[in-house]
């Protein structure tokens, strides 16, 4: 298949890459841009470990073609940290021990970040849980992840911003 030009930005860096048009977004990020923080865990859009943000919204990187983000701005886990300073959600994950094997963590962080962007003041814990429903974690039982998001929402890390 003829390769197509994709122009997009990843973590605020512009990229121009020639790819097979059936390349998935997660494949473009991992195999063409070379950022491996984003993982893959299934073939059925079920696990969420490939979650990234496209124009600030959470997207499972295996659910869309890379060509669909032409001209858009993609943020991956590598883009959360700014100038060596962690994003509050990353600090909260460390403080709560909200990861174990770490394989789902990138996707969890991106989903949490997008959730907090859309819902800075969740009305209760269940709202956070529902927001994270699409992401699987086999290690933590989720509660430490939920506590991290609640801590950021409560303003605990405001001074970190």
């Amino acid at each position, binding site marked *: 298949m003829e390769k197509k030009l994709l122009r997009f930005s990843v973590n605020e860096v512009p990229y121009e890459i020639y790819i097979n048009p059936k390349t998935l977004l997660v494949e473009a990020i991992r195999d063409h841009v070379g950022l491996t923080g984003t993982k893959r865990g299934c073939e059925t859009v079920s696990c969420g470990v490939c979650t990234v943000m496209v124009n600030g919204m959470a997207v499972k990187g295996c659910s869309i073609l890379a060509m669909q983000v032409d001209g858009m701005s993609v943020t991956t886990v590598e883009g959360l940290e700014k100038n060596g300073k962690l994003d509050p959600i990353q600090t909260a994950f460390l403080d709560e021990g909200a990861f174990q094997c770490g394989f789902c963590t990138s996707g969890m962080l991106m989903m949490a970040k997008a959730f907090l962007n859309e819902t800075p003041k969740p009305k209760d814990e269940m709202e956070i849980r529902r927001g994270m429903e699409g992401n699987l974690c086999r290690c933590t*039982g989720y509660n430490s992840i939920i506590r991290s998001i609640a801590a950021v929402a409560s303003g605990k890390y405001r001074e970190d911003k």
Partner: protein
Amino acid sequence: MSENKYAVLNTRVHNVDGYAKVTGRSTYTFDVKLPNMLYGKILRSPHPHAKILKIDYSEALKLPGVLTVATGKEDTLGVRQGIWRRYKDLCDEAILTVDKVRYIGEPVAAVAAVSEEIAEKALDLINVDYEVLPFVDDPMEAIKKEAPVIHEGFERNVNVTRQIAWGDVEDEMETADYIREDWFKLGGQHHMCMETRAAVASYTPDGKLTVWTSTQSAYYHQALLAGVLGLREGNIRVIAPYVGGGFGGKFELDGAQFCASILSMKCCKPVKVVFTREEDFIASKRRTPMYYYVRTGVKKDGTFCAREAKVFTNGGAYTGMGATALYLTGFFHSFPYRWKAYRYDGYRVYTNSLPSTSMRGFGAPQAMFCSEQQIDWIASDLGLDPIEMRRKNGHYEGYEVPGQATIASCGLDQCLTKIQEWVKSKGKLPKNRSIGISAAGFMSGGIFNWFDSPYSFSSAVVTINYDGTVELHVGAQEIGQGSSTTLALICAEALGVKLEDIKVHMGDTDHSPADLGAWGSRQTLMAGNATKMAAEDAKRQLLEFANAKLGFNIIYDLDIRQGWVYNVARPERGMSYYDLCKEALRGKEGQRIIGRGFYTPRRKGMISPAYSYMVQGLDVEIDPETGHIKIHESVTAHDCGQPINTLGLIGQLEGAASMAIGFGYYEYLPVEDGKVMNPNLVDYKLIRAPEMPDCHVIEIDTYEPEGPYGAKEAGEGLTNPHAAALGNAIFHGTGLQMKEAPIRAEAIAKAWKEKQEKGTEKKKK
């Protein structure tokens, strides 16, 4: 909890590998990419049982981009391996099979190509002629005389038998006022590691092989690969970088590791094999499905007399770690109670289905599901309080499980009290809500050495640099359970330095001492003891210099705490640890200080050097019409000795709860005609965030003399009680006795409907 007497133990610290994990810097086998690397794909058997007559891969080789195809017959030594290395007849799995397939998904051939896509296309071009054989996928059928023979030389397909017995069961049953017997059926469960099986193998013509792989024990894989490839152990380097989950499923040799190695040896280029999720479901392994018969005799005051259990496990096609699960389920079925007589007969039966193996809890969740529900049913039949009945018969400190184990620390009684208080505090529950409890116990590492390792079970080397930083080399494998942080904490505490002074090196057989790895909850106790010993060895050497330097009267004792080297009687007198390191190196002719430690359990019975105890309570809402369950709260009273890694402990317990609830309710893994029916994450249900209950843990303060600083198992044992606690909540709420795990919503609804119909019939009569 008593006040923390330690400087760093049991304090809330960030994981030592946390920064890498929250920034995407942690590199897993899945991420490894080497120059000149090829991609491997595996052709798998579509038949549960068949002879391989011919494999024709000539067309596959013609596909541009395909470099080589490997088959068991042509390219392997045909060695049948197994993790029970001491027992040749239990080494039954060639991985890339030579002549016969025994389950759907078994590797038949492997392709290496320049891309994954081409390798996958090549699989379609391989033609295999099979002679399809009759198959059997259920142990109760496979054990029959007329069943197909799966492995030669195993009468009635019985792979392993195990017996555990003490006292005379029939004599003690005579003394019982009440005897109850039940049959149970336990389903499989998939490990479902977020990172599927993966390996990158790189063989070079000088006879050296390096394998990056997602494993629970780098040493096991080094040794197993040496055996099947005909290489020296020392010429194989296994690197386990970050590991995306294990849960008992990643310490046997798997298709990714073996096929990547064989392909790499054929073309002398690196080869990467990563399982798809579907491959991971059908061709890695699973928790052992079991049929459980339990007969229990008690006196009318609730005193336990005797128990008899007969268990038939679905071994699937190969032995793997399943033989250990067969033993442990029998042992933990007696737990945590005192039986005057106990007899367990276990039969592991080969079938033509996905092999079964160890999985978090290692046979105990199955055992507890049966035992702990039956105990509640007995208490109900006799009109006794189920918590008091457990207390009356429970283990206590100093109890000896006849011929098996001595219990040196036990907080069971306190756990029961805490849960009793919690149950009382709940008061009257709303409609459709009920509480179920279950007790459990678990081991802190196994004593058995069926692997026949010539090395100490755990070893550690502590090296102190000029600036006081510490290199801790361990073979203990970090797989997310927090072992690197736990061992760093132990090292920092023993040496008297800060956590940030410690660097942990693990997961590389070239640079880490051999260690059996992460299974059976062994690392905190065993690698912890080795680490403590190594740190204390290094500290002793440092203090020799401190003594000379500080010139105290020799009657005084010196110690180090948080970087301060001091006179124990006069703590203000001393010197900085960091200054001392500089001086000490000078005194050693520039050599770094090196401490060594090791641990192998001795004189600790048959099973484990120490046992944890716990009682689990669940507050459950049940809609009997639909069978739908919602767990409102989970409370655990937990005795793991001295907690070491505070955050790690909380995380392990919450994680164990999520997996245990999965085993009890969500995770149904049906196999029909030898085929896994739901090999994907749409149809295989894992618990998700909204369904996960709040989990409260009450730690009981005990001290385990065999453990480092009094620590023992935490995090695996809590996989054991939830399924039974859920069953007990259903029983107390609806009167239904659910004898099959997972307790599926459909099964509850069906049982409820039958019960209602029976009730109406009775009324009519």
